[in-house]
């Protein structure tokens, strides 16, 4: 993973090629996402960038009817709500992302514990297009 640095920007650079990166502590073994130069568990600075599987489990979620500006620009509103959640990756750490392909018309039907796989989402239109992390059920 030498092509990516610990700078936060590189997390999104990696996403552009569908890679989810994090960091691994060479001292205590802790895995962290996004990647960081300092291990939050042992506080050491002996960390390396690793590629993660993108597989995980839904821990918490919401279906949003009053969107953020970015999501409103992506076409979401009260009639077209979207799901976001916190996902526990199989490698251990957790991360937030939009959850696609779940029944947002019935939030009660969305199950915590659902197995998910990462995907990437382009938002921002042609001029400001950026790649974001998302998940969908396996």
């Amino acid at each position, binding site marked *: 993973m030498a092509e990516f640095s610990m700078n936060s920007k590189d997390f999104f650079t990696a996403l552009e090629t569908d890679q989810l990166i994090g960091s691994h502590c060479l001292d205590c073994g802790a895995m962290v996402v996004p990647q960081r130069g300092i291990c939050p568990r042992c506080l050491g600075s002996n960390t390396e960038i690793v590629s993660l599987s993108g597989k995980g489990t839904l821990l*918490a979620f919401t279906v949003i009817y009053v969107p*953020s500006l970015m999501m409103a620009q992506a076409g979401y509103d009260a009639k077209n709500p979207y799901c976001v959640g916190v996902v526990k990756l199989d490698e251990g750490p957790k991360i937030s992302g939009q959850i696609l392909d779940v029944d947002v018309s019935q939030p009660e039907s969305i199950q915590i514990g659902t197995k998910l796989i990462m995907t990437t989402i382009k938002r921002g239109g042609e001029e400001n297009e950026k790649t974001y992390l998302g998940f969908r059920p396996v």
Partner: protein
Amino acid sequence: MSESKWNRGVAVVGVGLSKFGAFKEKNSRDLFVEAYLDLINSMHRYDPKKVEAFYLGNFSSDQFEKQAHLAPILASWVGLSPIPTVRIEDACASGGVAIRQAALAIASGQYDVVLVGGVEKMTDLEIAAVTEALATAADTQFEVPAGFTFPGFYAAMASAYMHEYNAQRDAFYHVSIKNHSNGALNDKAQFGQTIRSIMESKKARAAQKGRPVPEWEDEIDFLSDPKGNPMIAWPMTLFDCSPVSDGAAVALLVSEDLASTFTDTPIYLVGSGQASDGALPERETLSSIPAAEEAGRQAYHMANLSPKDIDLAEVHDCFTIAEIIATEDLGFFERGAGWQAAIEGKTARKGDHPVNTSGGLKSKGHPVGATGVGQVAEIWKQLNGIAGERQVPGDPKIGLTHNVGGTGQTCVVNIFERRDLNG
């Protein structure tokens, strides 16, 4: 004060509040002056020349009003220049942290008399812009890009809480109903109507316009109907969310030995704690707020008190789920028991653990920087027995404030005590 490093005690000798609401004609300094005048009127012997420093809790006047560097402006506007001024920003906990920082400055011996203010003027911006400004209190690099909004964060915590404890959604509505019933007795409240009166006025409006009148049986029925109470971020509805507000609050803090020179009815800051945390994905749990539990632990320890000693609490109910979680983080109820306690009325004014007698953020309003200071004003009134119709029974002596920034990246807990002169 077991193991406290505080060199001396700190007292609150006066409080002031502006009305909370949406005020087109007022800016931050106007609201602050209104609260400051209320403080002067509340005090027996106030001498502005004795004020040595001013600590201001303010989240983002830069974004809301295009005015940064607000603290010296406000001090000047009430004639306090050239005392040193500091603006403190810890998102929605700015006010509570300002109280704590002022107390630490007094406890250190640096100052004897410190004025604490909190203010936010939020309603000048369009609602979408307000939402964007508030989102900057979250992690804008890695959480906001997921599509989260602030109601969304707390809604996700609610989903984890409901899943873990099999909690019923009605519990959230009970928090809203209770806080509005308290706020209806608070003349400073932004939405000082009971949910029942809001429901009845919606019915009346429908009848007036010749539309079919909704057949809501009671408040829960009304709140469960998306036509009366639209979904914002499942499971948080409109009536689960605190409003966008303008308002200001002030408190005068002095060293304990000087309290009687300002007032006959001081209350004492006997415990204080503060903690921080990362964004939601960095936490072990999503069904509690670890920083709140830690801040509470520190405050209880310093005060040598336990949760059962707390006669009433003002907690940070930015969303109804936040109040339920707060009552567990602060140890009033066991983990997973807070939702049931809310349904059973245990947090009502006459319950075992009165919470948010002011109406809370939900009904009183949530002018972000003012909130934590406003909580102290309510505790002051309740401990001094001057809360009028919303006075909690039983001569309360110990009150707690719990103020959260973001989704729990900051939490500050302060505990206050009234001491009777005859011991």
